[in-house]
């Protein structure tokens, strides 16, 4: 797409671009290239000298059992959050799509958690499930469950999954609802005339027609789990207990800050960049298909 009516000025467009380009070059390209460069360096213990070590940081990284563990943690975390938040949101969206009077009220009530900061969401859930003072932890104990997310890795994972799902339902709900509302009523009516009940119509008509939305949301949810859940993890578990909630992004932070291993941290950043670029590429291919569709 190109405009045919344009201005002929020569210098003005550059002046208009200067603010964004300067900020992008200084705060994006400079640090991003530093990350790539640093991943080939090793600093001495005092951070005074650094030498070029080639791929050693990457070799060290992929020799670490912890790194594979963080990959697995990320995989478990993102599949749980994506599966749960997508299916719960779809359930609510199908109900809100029905012709009921209070639908707009329900809609507002469902979408506001989008605005809650991940770290704040984490603190809310930690408070409810805190082993000693949590409102919901007490009944769990009474029922004989030895609940302790501060010591038990699986409990910690369950807690951050709940907080992350709670926050993400809003977003998925909004997009599912929009997707549902764009399905032509005539198709559903045709199904009804052919004798399909509501459930049958959902699985054979609505769900397949919703698949572009579902796929788009799947990618968005994975990106969300990768990056936006940092606040939840840091506020609730700090990556613990014993690294059981350390995702790949959290490990970049923890290794660089606590371990002081900047080369290793930079190598991890580069691996993450590759993953994100792959995810974005998938997303764009999908967007192009949607345009043809």
């Amino acid at each position, binding site marked *: 797409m190109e405009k045919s009516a344009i201005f002929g000025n020569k210098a003005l467009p550059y002046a208009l671009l200067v603010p964004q380009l300067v900020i992008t070059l200084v705060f994006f390209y400079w640090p991003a290239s530093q990350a790539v460069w640093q991943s080939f360096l090793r600093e001495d213990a005092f951070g005074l000298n650094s030498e070029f070590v080639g791929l050693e940081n990457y070799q060290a990284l992929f020799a670490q059992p912890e790194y594979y563990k963080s990959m697995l943690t990320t995989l478990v975390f993102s599949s749980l959050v994506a599966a749960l938040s997508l299916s719960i949101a779809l359930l609510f969206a199908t109900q809100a799509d029905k012709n009921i009077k209070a639908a707009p009220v329900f809609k507002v*009530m469902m979408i506001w958690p989008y605005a809650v900061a991940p770290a704040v969401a984490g603190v809310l859930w930690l408070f409810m499930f805190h082993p000693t003072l949590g409102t919901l932890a007490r009944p769990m104990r009474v029922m004989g469950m030895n609940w302790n997310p501060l010591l038990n890795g699986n409990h910690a994972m369950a807690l951050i999954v709940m907080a992350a799902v709670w926050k993400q339902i809003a977003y998925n709900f909004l997009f599912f609802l929009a997707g549902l509302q764009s399905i032509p009523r005539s198709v559903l009516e045709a199904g009804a005339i052919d004798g399909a009940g509501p459930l049958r119509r959902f699985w054979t008509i609505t769900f397949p027609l919703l698949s572009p939305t579902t796929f788009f949301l799947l990618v968005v949810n994975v990106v969300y789990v990768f990056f936006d859940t940092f606040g939840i993890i840091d506020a609730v578990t700090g990556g613990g207990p014993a690294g059981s909630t350390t995702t790949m992004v959290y490990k970049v932070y923890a290794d660089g800050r606590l371990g002081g291993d900047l080369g290793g941290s930079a190598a991890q950043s580069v691996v993450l960049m590759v993953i994100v670029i792959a995810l974005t590429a998938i997303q764009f291919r999908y967007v192009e298909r949607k345009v043809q569709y």
Partner: protein
Amino acid sequence: MVEHRRWNDIVAYLVLTLGVLLVVFPVYVALIASTHDAATVVNGNMPMLPGGHALENYYRAIFVGGSRASREPVGHMLINSFIMAMGIALGKIFISILSAYAVVYFRFPFRKTAFWIIFITLMLPVEVRIYPTYKVIADLKMLDTYGGLILPLIASATGTLLFRQFFMTIPDELLEASRIDGAGPYRFFKDTLLPLSVTTMAALFVIQFIYGWNQYLWPLLITTQDSMQTIVTGIKKMLTTTDELAEWQLAMATAILAMLPPVAVVIFMQRLFVRGLVETEK
């Protein structure tokens, strides 16, 4: 609707009510906790109805801070968060509407290059390049400044793409008409383009305000002084105290205060919010 059955509506109301309860419950618990005194909250048997310490807790949280002298009162953190969120939202609108104007309405060498330089930033969120960005800010002596909090987060392409997309939908006849009236690039921008873009700007503002307000990792890293803390990072610090028991009732009051502004934005500007969310994702 295809058919209207009574039980169908009842199911909808039941499921949605359950959903709303699920969504509201964590905040309700926090709200209740913020109205009790420390002892009631800590003993693990907090009542599910409000207590009588709301005023005291919120007063202490906003104006005094936790019991340790080094902690900032939340009032100050709210101001920092507000400045950061406004800076990010307005800064992004400013730089991206200008660059989109340049890319859409002018032809010049390296136009495509400039667009791609901006476009690629979409792919890498700040979390991925966190330490190198920290180092750049440190080298520029911008630690503990508002500039350091704001600038790295506006280096992204979402706004530019949004405005570009919107400008493409504006009919060419408008530009031709104002050119016949003798308008140059400045007049056209000010008198035609800006008024037309108000809704798009507002939608972008809503999304970016929430984004800026909710930042966590970045302010955590680059603010070392308590006086520069934002409220979202401040809550965590209230809970990680080694010397004394964490004051959960104050932390919960802070959590409520931290979510109030962005949640209010979503509720009261719902249409702009939805529009911004849908359009920035395209």
